[in-house]
């Protein structure tokens, strides 16, 4: 009876929405309880202010396991190599980001391009040439993926610049654009 009475509808709607919100709150509480129970170590590390350090440690361990044998260079080493002008710099970021800004003379070569066999950037590059691969920031793996693939293709002097373009840009080192 009530259901079909149009005058009662706003009141019913209000009650219904309030009830829905109350149950939504209950679901939130349940999620909090389960989340805290399952991931308490993560929550504790974060509350203690050690999350960043812990994540870096985990990232290093994961990379050491996954990308064994790939050499790395620091920000300053990468800058020195650019100044010496001997190394080829490869930008492993998506093409839009590369076109916007990149390290001078760097060529774009993403992991996807390598998978598709699009390796024009490597045309005429000697296998013994020093190559430095970088991606966006310290937590991206694209540079390591490209470096590993290049090593498997026979390039012997490949290194990944792990701090990435963000650190380079923040350090005030020269950048170039293709736009």
């Amino acid at each position, binding site marked *: 009876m009530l*259901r*079909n009475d149009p005058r009662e*509808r706003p009141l*019913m*709607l209000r009650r*219904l929405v309030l009830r*829905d*919100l*109350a*149950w*939504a709150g*209950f*679901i*939130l509480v*349940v*999620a*909090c309880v*389960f*989340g*805290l129970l*399952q*991931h*308490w170590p*993560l*929550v*504790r*590390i*974060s*509350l*203690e*202010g050690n*999350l*960043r350090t*812990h*994540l870096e440690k*985990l*990232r290093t361990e994961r990379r050491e396991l996954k990308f064994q044998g790939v050499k790395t260079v620091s920000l300053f080493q990468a800058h020195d190599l650019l100044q010496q002008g001997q190394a080829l710099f490869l930008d492993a970021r*998506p093409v839009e*980001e590369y076109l916007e800004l990149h390290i001078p003379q760097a060529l774009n070569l993403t992991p996807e391009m390598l998978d598709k066999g699009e390796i024009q950037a490597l045309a005429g590059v000697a296998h013994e040439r020093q190559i430095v691969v970088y991606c*966006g*920031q310290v*937590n*991206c793996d694209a540079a390591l993926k490209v470096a590993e693939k290049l090593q498997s293709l026979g390039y012997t002097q490949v290194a990944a610049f792990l701090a990435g373009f963000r650190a380079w840009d923040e350090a005030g080192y020269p950048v170039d654009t293709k736009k």
Partner: protein
Amino acid sequence: MQIRGSRIWLRLLEIVFGGLFVYAGLQKNYHPYEFAEAVLAYQLIPEPLVGLTAAVLPWLELAGGLCLMAGLKRRSCLVVLGFLSAMFMAVLIITLARGLKIDCGCGLFFQQQVGPAAILEDGLILLWAAGLYWWEVRKELGGGG
């Protein structure tokens, strides 16, 4: 007959919608530290609260998605999942406006960067949740379907 047909469609759409969130929640729940890294990259939440966010959000997606699939408190599940989508939309817009180029941590089946495509995807999910909620309310109030 027509009403029954539309109810079947409603349930089907709810099951698929819930399933998407269960999948997304499981991905995050299996890799909590990677998810915490993605949350940290947004630079929106104070570091001490990133762990709590990374612990609770996947469970919110899982609880909302599973209950919706099972047909338990469907409208409340849609409120939760719609609220999550709306919050995430705000986060994506703020991040895009700040010019941060980071992985959104949101791609259901592939990695995706924060950008218009991610906002569009989230907008569609939000519309889906709103549409289902409206449908459920109409049904409850006897307004049809």
